[in-house]
């Protein structure tokens, strides 16, 4: 079986994503870790685009890179100087953590590759965004999660503002 062009692209993107992911957890400088995290998010967005989920891909870029990454960097700047780069960045159980993570990966990968998965079906995904928008407000589909998401966002906003504001 020869390797095809999409497979090459996938392998490059996957290795890039995993490399940046590793850099996130090992970087000594926290701001560097955040920037590696942004690259990792971007790699995941490319994976979504390869899965023909264009909407999810752009949402990943808009939300994770454009919003959550900014939030993380701001929080980092507000809690400054508490950890200099010279201090150890990992706790005493890091060896144990590494073993646990590696064991989890080996177990999962073994399980995943032992299962027979269904192959890719070629279907037309035209108009899936309109379908998604319709499903979000269709009474017998997802209107409840849709409105509950709004309530969740309100709670998150009010709660986080109450916790973070300097007033009290």
């Amino acid at each position, binding site marked *: 079986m020869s390797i095809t062009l999409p497979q090459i692209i996938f392998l490059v993107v996957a290795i890039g994503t995993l490399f940046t992911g590793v850099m996130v957890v090992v970087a000594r400088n926290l701001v560097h870790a955040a920037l590696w995290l942004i690259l990792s998010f971007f790699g995941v967005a490319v994976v979504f685009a390869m899965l023909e989920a264009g909407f999810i891909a752009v949402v990943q870029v808009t*939300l994770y890179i454009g*919003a959550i990454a900014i939030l993380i960097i701001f929080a980092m700047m507000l809690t400054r100087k508490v950890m200099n780069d010279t201090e150890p960045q990992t706790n005493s159980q890091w060896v144990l953590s590494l073993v646990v993570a590696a064991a989890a990966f080996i177990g999962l990968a073994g399980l995943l590759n032992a299962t027979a998965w269904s192959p890719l079906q070629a279907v037309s995904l035209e108009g899936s965004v309109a379908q998604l928008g*319709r499903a979000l407000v269709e009474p017998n589909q997802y209107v409840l999660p849709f409105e509950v998401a709004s309530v969740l*966002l309100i709670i998150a906003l009010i709660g986080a503002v109450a916790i973070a504001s300097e007033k009290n």
Partner: protein
Amino acid sequence: MQTDWLFIGIFLAIGLVFPAVPIVLAYFISPHKSNPLKNDTYECGIETVGEAWVQFKAQYYIFALVFVVFDVESVFLFPWAVAYKAMPFFMVFEGILFILLLVGALVYIWRKGVLEWA
């Protein structure tokens, strides 16, 4: 469809390489005469005191927070807006209810005085 994404992928790569061209060109043309004073931090001629990482106020974080909430809201509202044309009235109203709930949160934090830049 996938060709369009390939187009964007190549555009991103080229977009990173093209602006590097003048910088690399300038690296070969421009002089390199550095000295410690020239390479020091520039603060309009005054000597730098302490490090650049000064304390920022939590207001920055709170505004970013409101932005994140509205960004997530847009993720739900864009599909709703795309499907808007073929919707009956009550489904449009469900979307508006979604917006109004967030307006309620905005009004609440406004009344709380969180939106003041003090």
